């Protein structure tokens, strides 16, 4: 039944042997030294400051949407850094390995990475950046902000929310451990068929990649279900569909993509798994398999996934442009329609990733036209942002700088995308680094949006602003690095450089490659400024106002800063799209509730963490074909779920006096003074 694999196999450890640990590779030894040092420092400081209990109770067991969101973001940032290092390796390799006379180090004929290793580096770069950096960063932001923007206490399913997080973490762990135990996939982040099938790829690399995607995909699907249910069922009273803030709307569109597209990936990877483990022939080159079937299924998920990532970034830009122009968003209904339109059209453009498949002129025409149609709603958004800024009172704070840059990047990425949607152009530049530069412009929109949002909402979550000076240094170095890396890449692509090359024969590309390395060095500076920004801000901790930027518009700025764990002491009644602006216009922004009612809160539980770690054990065992461990951890997960269903713990109730006391401590003196001024209205609210 099970497919025989090359090499030794034992019932206890499966394929795992001492040879799986790449202790002969100096690069990986160096990486391991860094990772181990970082791990020892983190674990050591937790032990030294006696924070084990705190971390376990307050973070790992937390079902609070804000804490979960913060953990998602930390995961995303760590993975972003690792993905960046992969990028550094690719750029330096390509800067060295040009022409037959180029030197070779560390056992490579040219450059310092042998082809097999280089292939793993770019496969890991793509997988990590999209699945384990961008996705957790955006999911984390959605987790933190969406319930606040709609005036909810938490997500609809707080426990499921924690499960989603820990499943994603399990996938990231799988990617990380592949560095030091075994190898990662060399079949690109897409998984090329039939190359990723067992006969041509008998190692564990593809298995690592496959299971990492599979388990984190499950987490993302659950999270999408959670987000939709939260938005549909838990909006504050008075918040009709056309009073939902635009970031929440894009999360709705994104979650619809998540719940419909991710299952297709699950199915495609499950079929690949069947091929690799039990010997079916879905994607085999022979035996009646069809390997183009895989790439169609993959991009049926993959293209909606692209919009899954970029739509939240559009939402972030909308919020920030409107706040820092001190104006309501221009064309709010068209923004919603455009988001939903992009999400919908995203389903019918997947074949533009492989126009060269040979699908015939009719299908090419359809997919080409469908792709061009995406430009319409995206253009609507770009114009809406510009019109929002038009005659606005613009403040060029760091978030706004990021947002404006995102619009410019979207223009470059979008227009090159339109070029690529014309199949004749695509045939010429297919698989060239022109395409790579195009989609990096788009993912830089995501990155820029995330950095904008981190700066923008940081005070809301932590109670103090990030350092503005260092934030601007970070911004300018990041932008300079992006220009220096990706403008030469566009040019190299038009000069005919194809993707994923560990060696360039064309020596005329050397100046461009060197320019890209300069860009990477500037990126390194930006990483330094980012870390400096965090450290300096943490040290200073200047308390932020409730409405940290002074021009906040939506509900999240109405509650205390930092947000108390129960979000809103009393659920607000919503009167307008920009509720806080409405309250400001009526002089009600300082109004406090005059009575408090008890709040029902979910209890913390360690079960999601345990389930996530069992998921990691199960997938790790499957990678190494340790059947007993895989079976045992799967069984343990099922039993834990059943046992939990017998648990009668329904959370706890926070008494009204506790909330009143907490609110008194959080509120500043000035707020209390203001409160007496507006008491007639607040006092009347008491009667309801």
């Amino acid at each position: 039944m099970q497919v025989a694999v090359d090499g030794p196999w034992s019932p206890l450890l499966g394929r795992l042997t001492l040879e799986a640990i790449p202790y002969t590779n100096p690069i990986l030894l160096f990486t391991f030294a860094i990772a181990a040092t970082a791990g020892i420092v983190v674990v050591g400081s937790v032990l030294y400051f006696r924070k084990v209990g705190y971390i376990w109770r307050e973070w790992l067991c937390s079902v609070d949407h804000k804490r979960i969101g913060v953990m998602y973001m930390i995961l995303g940032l760590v993975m972003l850094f690792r993905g960046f290092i992969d990028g550094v390796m690719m750029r330096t390799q390509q800067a060295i390995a040009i022409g037959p006379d180029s030197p070779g180090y560390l056992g490579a004929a040219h450059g310092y990475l042998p082809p097999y290793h280089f292939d793993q580096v770019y496969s890991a770069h793509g997988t990590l950046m999209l699945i384990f950096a961008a996705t957790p960063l955006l999911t984390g932001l959605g987790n933190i902000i969406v319930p606040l923007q709609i005036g909810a206490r938490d997500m609809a399913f707080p426990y499921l929310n924690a499960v989603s997080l820990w499943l994603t973490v399990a996938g990231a762990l799988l990617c990380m451990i592949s560095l030091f135990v075994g190898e990662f996939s060399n079949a690109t982040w897409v998984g090329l068929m039939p190359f990723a099938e067992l006969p041509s790829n008998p190692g564990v690399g593809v298995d690592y990649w496959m299971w990492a995607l599979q388990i984190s995909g499950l987490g993302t699907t659950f999270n999408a279900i959670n987000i939709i249910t939260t938005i549909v069922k838990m909006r504050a009273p008075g918040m009709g569909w056309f009073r939902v803030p635009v970031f929440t709307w894009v999360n709705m569109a994104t979650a619809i993509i998540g719940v419909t597209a991710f299952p297709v990936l699950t199915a495609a990877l499950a079929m690949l798994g069947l091929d690799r483990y039990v010997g079916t022939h879905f994607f085999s080159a022979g035996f009646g398999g069809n390997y183009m079937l895989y790439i169609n299924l993959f991009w049926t998920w993959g293209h909606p996934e692209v919009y899954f990532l970029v739509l939240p970034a559009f939402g972030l830009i909308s919020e920030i442009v409107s706040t820092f122009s001190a104006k309501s968003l221009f064309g709010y209904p068209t923004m919603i329609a455009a988001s939903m339109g992009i999400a919908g059209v995203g389903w019918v453009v997947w074949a533009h990733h492989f126009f060269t498949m040979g699908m015939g002129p009719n299908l090419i025409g359809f997919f080409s036209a469908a792709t061009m149609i995406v430009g319409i709603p995206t253009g609507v958004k770009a114009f809406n942002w510009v019109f929002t800024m038009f005659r606005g009172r613009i403040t060029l704070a760091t978030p706004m700088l990021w947002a404006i840059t995102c619009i410019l990047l979207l223009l470059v990425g979008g227009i090159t995308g339109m070029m690529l949607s014309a199949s004749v152009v695509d045939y010429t530049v297919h698989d060239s680094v022109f395409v790579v530069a195009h989609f990096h412009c788009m993912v830089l929109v995501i990155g820029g949006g995330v950095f904008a949002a981190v700066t923008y909402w940081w005070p809301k979550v932590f109670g103090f602003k990030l350092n503005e000076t260092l934030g601007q240094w970070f911004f300018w170095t990041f932008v300079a690095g992006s220009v220096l890396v990706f403008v030469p890449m566009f040019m190299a692509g038009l000069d005919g450089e194809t993707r994923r090359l560990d060696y360039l024969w064309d020596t005329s590309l050397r100046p461009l490659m060197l320019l890209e390395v300069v860009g990477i060095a500037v990126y390194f500076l930006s990483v330094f400024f980012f870390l400096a920004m965090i450290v300096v801000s943490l040290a200073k901790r200047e308390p932020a106002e409730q409405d940290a930027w002074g021009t906040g518009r939506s509900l999240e700025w109405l509650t205390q800063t930092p947000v108390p764990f129960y979000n809103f002491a009393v659920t607000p009644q919503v009167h307008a799209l920009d509720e806080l602006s409405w309250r400001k216009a009526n002089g009600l922004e300082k109004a406090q509730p005059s009575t408090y009612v008890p709040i029902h809160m979910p209890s913390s539980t360690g079960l999601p963490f345990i389930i996530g770690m069992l998921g990691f054990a199960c997938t790790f065992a499957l990678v190494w074909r340790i059947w007993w461990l895989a079976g045992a951890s799967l069984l343990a997960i099922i039993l834990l779920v059943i046992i939990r269903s017998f648990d009668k713990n329904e959370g706890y109730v926070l008494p009204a006096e506790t909330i009143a006391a907490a609110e008194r401590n959080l509120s500043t003196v000035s707020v209390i003074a203001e409160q007496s001024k507006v008491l007639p209205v607040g006092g009347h609210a008491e009667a309801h």
Partner: protein
Amino acid sequence: MASFTKAGADTVLWNPGADAHDTISARTYGFWLYLLGDALIIAAVFACYAVLNNPLNANGGPLGKDFLSASKGMLQTFIVLGSVLSYSLATVALKRGSKLGVSLGMIGAILLAVVFLGIGLGDLAALSAAGDGFARSGYLSCFFTLILTHALHMGFGILWMLVMLVQVGVFGFTENVVARLLNLRMFWQFQASVWVVVYIYVYLFGGAH
């Protein structure tokens, strides 16, 4: 600047009663969304079946039209629908608050599901024994996967019903138990719908390719 409506003297700013939302409705809605995602998994397998149901992908082995029996499939369909009927009677009993009725309905649903699985898995075993197992060809890989994906759903449904039999007995009809019974009803009807599509698409149309 958009013009805002003026706040009047009777404007309500806070709504302390808004917290008590209907948890059962949120849970069934969330589960319905899960079923939507699950349906997409099955749709992907169907898409593969549509592609691979082709002599080119039979690798010299049989296609569905060579071994599928529409009448036997019809029998299976009636068994599945009978199982759904039995569970529906359980939900009727739930409305009356009868523990016995709910339990009997679920036991009936389980028994019919086991009979169904016996027939289905027996067919697959016979096919494998004849040398036409899932590793024979791309087509057979997809056929086995499609049938077994549905069978896996049934298996989970049976496990769920067994757990619910215990919970109805131990807890009675608490909010949690009722929410789970309602979700299980959706799940059970979902797997039946999947089977009906399998029957139409694979058993009835399969031969006509």
